[in-house]
């Protein structure tokens, strides 16, 4: 073959790789945009934008800073609204978007799509890069939709000219890096055994807090609230430091603290002019460098995938050496002698609702990952830890319970076992009822020590825990059934858990803390029950449709 022919061939291969990647991006983005989760996320993003940018004279505000003992916020100029919406997008979407995009490699591996792809000219690296690009493109499309409320909010409440550059530029500077980073970590979690799946979904909440908030604030010296220690950083995926610097340029005195949450106030916050955004070479370089950090998780994902993707081809490992089947039992099967009917040993199955619930409960235990052991240990520890220290094992138990039960209601849909399972005689007409009974039974059994300890604290805590467990079980079953997966429940529950374990939290759904509000717990239990009723209604509607 001539040199020219070799060059042409390799160029052709490169072209083929790019075409394959672009095809992958197109197909995945299209299919994700058609998912109901996308509509829900866009609606949530719109709602959050409107909540985050309230009317300027409202007794609530979202972005406030404290200077010389007084709290201020920005006047609604195009620059301020643009910066707020950009910050909201780059903080909210990474948290939620992770759950939307993670799991596609796991699906390919479980459904054996990967071996088909591996047999084509697509390399493992380009396959993963395609996955990352697809997730990045999808998240960026979602993030871009957040600009619509930004424009609307400016037209509604804005002052000054509609400076499109000021309105859009913060988004352009923040969103790409945040989405690229999220897509890369979603991929890393997806290819790492132990992180792909339910455990990873819970862990992401904490990893997100560290990656997007704690680390940038720490490395830039913004944690200690002493301006003398402030330094620029190239690591700022959510744009917190970027936003802090914008605020610092808007005031003449040092900023003591910045509040990013939506806060209810006694009177409207005084609003001061917000410094217009100045884009210079250094800022662009810093944002480009932040984008560059994406390479780290991406590289880690590629290395991890090489290590683990081929595992399926190896000889399957024995589950436990002590349970190895005797070699002598390998005799070939022979059809029973004689031309008459096959004679199975007689048995008298008595299918019932109770037995099917027991079967499902046992399956919950068997199919749970290693997380079930620390969950059980935390439950047992709650009986022996003295005093107020008991909140720690109770909180840990409630957190670890979520990944164990999170996908139970959608198990058949996820594994493709629906036809075989739903044709069994022990199942009641309502599969939702079956799932709720099994999950609730499992939760009550696993939480028996926690429940007992809560009762020993006082009757109120006992009842609160019972309501909390009812909420957890019903929400897992209801949301799992409604969404056909566990991501929504796991993401929402983990975020709620984080708020609930704070001191005197108003959202303590299970009486974890010292002061348990039965009304709050009952309200959460009611929410769980409503999700089950909704699931049952959807099941009935589907059944009616056939």
């Amino acid at each position, binding site marked *: 073959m001539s040199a020219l022919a070799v060059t042409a061939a390799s160029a052709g291969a490169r072209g083929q790789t790019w075409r394959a990647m672009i095809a992958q991006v197109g197909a995945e983005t299209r299919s994700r945009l058609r998912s109901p989760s996308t509509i829900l996320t866009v609606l949530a993003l719109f709602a959050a934008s409107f909540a985050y940018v309230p009317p300027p004279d409202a007794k609530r505000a979202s972005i406030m800073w404290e200077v010389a003992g007084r709290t201020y916020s920005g006047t609604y100029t195009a620059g301020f609204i643009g910066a707020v919406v950009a910050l909201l997008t780059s903080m909210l979407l990474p948290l939620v978007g992770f759950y939307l995009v993670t799991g596609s490699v796991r699906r390919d591996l479980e459904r054996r799509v990967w071996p088909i792809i591996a047999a084509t000219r697509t390399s493992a690296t380009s396959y993963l890069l395609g996955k990352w690009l697809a997730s990045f493109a999808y998240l960026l499309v979602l993030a871009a939709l957040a600009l619509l409320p930004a424009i609307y909010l400016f037209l509604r409440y804005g002052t000054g000219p509609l400076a499109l550059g000021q309105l859009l530029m913060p988004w352009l500077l923040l969103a790409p890096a945040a989405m690229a980073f999220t897509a890369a970590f979603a991929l890393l979690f997806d290819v790492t055994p132990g992180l792909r799946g339910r455990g990873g979904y819970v862990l992401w909440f904490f990893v997100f807090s560290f990656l997007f908030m704690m680390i940038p604030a720490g490395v830039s010296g913004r944690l200690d609230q002493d301006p003398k220690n402030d330094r620029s950083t190239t690591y700022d995926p959510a744009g917190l430091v970027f936003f802090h610097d914008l605020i610092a340029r808007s005031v003449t005195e040092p900023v003591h603290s910045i509040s990013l949450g939506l806060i209810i106030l006694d009177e409207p916050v005084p609003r001061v002019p917000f410094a217009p955004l100045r884009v210079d070479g250094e800022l662009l370089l810093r944002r480009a460098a932040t984008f560059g950090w994406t390479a780290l998780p991406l590289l880690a994902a590629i290395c991890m995938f090489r290590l683990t993707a081929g595992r399926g081809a190896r000889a399957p490992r024995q589950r436990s050496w002590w349970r190895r089947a005797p070699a002598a039992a390998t005799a070939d099967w022979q059809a029973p002698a004689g031309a008459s009917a096959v004679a199975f040993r007689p048995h008298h199955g008595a299918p019932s609702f109770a037995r099917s619930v027991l079967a499902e409960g046992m399956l919950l235990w068997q199919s749970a990952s290693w997380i079930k052991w620390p969950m059980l240990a935390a439950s047992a520890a709650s009986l022996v830890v003295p005093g107020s220290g008991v909140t720690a094992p109770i909180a840990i138990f409630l957190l670890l319970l979520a990944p164990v039960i999170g996908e139970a209601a959608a198990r058949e849909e996820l594994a493709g076992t629906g036809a075989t399972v739903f044709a069994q005689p*022990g199942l009641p007409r309502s599969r939702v009822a079956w799932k709720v009974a099994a999950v609730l039974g499992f939760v009550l059994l696993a939480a028996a020590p926690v429940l007992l300890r809560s009762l020993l604290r006082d009757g109120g805590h006992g009842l609160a825990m019972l309501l909390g467990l009812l909420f957890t079980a019903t929400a897992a079953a209801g949301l799992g059934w409604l969404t056909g997966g566990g991501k929504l429940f796991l993401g929402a529950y983990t975020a709620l858990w984080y708020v609930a374990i704070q001191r005197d939290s108003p959202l303590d759904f299970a009486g974890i803390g010292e002061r348990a509000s039965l009304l709050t717990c009952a309200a959460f239990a009611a929410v769980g029950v409503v999700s089950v009723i909704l699931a049952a209604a959807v099941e009935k509607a589907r059944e009616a449709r056939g």
Partner: protein
Amino acid sequence: MLEITGLTKRYGNGTVALSDFTLSLGEGVLGLLGPNGAGKTTLMSIVATVLRPTTGTVRWRGVDALGDPLAIRRELGYLPQDFGVYDKLTAVELLRYFGRLKGLAGKELKVAVDEMIDLVNLRPAANRRLGGFSGGMRQRVGIAQALLGDPKLLIVDEPTVGLDPEERVRFRNLLSELGHGRTVILSTHIVSDVEAIAERIAVIRQGRLVRCATPEELLAHAVGRVWRAVVPAERLGEVQRAVAVSNLTRRADGVHVRFVAPAGEPAVAGAAAVEPTLEDAYLLTNVEAAA
């Protein structure tokens, strides 16, 4: 035992998968043959009570299976075409799970699962996780779960897919024996599987029952309608357009073409009638139905 009457299934997108399908079954093996998309899987899903028809009834031992699905499920063994498994469970754990759903418990459950493990020749892998199973081994787990609980109605959709030839023959023989005292519905594309074990064959096309007959009746109908001719390679296209070809073999003297001609003597020079096979008879039934 099984009465299917006027079954019609129209999906949400307007596709009519089954149209006024009526069939009555007693003991024995019924082979269900039909091209892709003919409605075989839809029919079996409805009989297995995992899908509801738009109209029509399914009665098992006189009981309306759609009104009382448990009546059929208590005696049902069902192996769908595409079925999943829980990768983290072992074969024994999965079978015990299905056994519990069938109402088995205790020692009886253990014995029944052991029996199935041996029956499908999975003893060496019984305690391995299903995630590491090959396609054929998974298929055998599927067969085992379908046979668990001694079902009186067995519905198997493409059961021999992925099995090696030896296992395929074993399972074929097993199904044949299971037909005694039970009702077995076997759907497959492999005509030789049906030929070996089915006492009746139902040919389904575009959601309608085209023909239901014994293999002998189908063969008898095809006598005088199956032909063979040797044609030059350059005329092959012309012949393929004129008749329904069931087999082609290239030889030195030309292409040996085997084909069916519903109307009798075909317009292919040098054609000679040959003994029909069940594959020819199936093709002929389809050609006639299409006409």
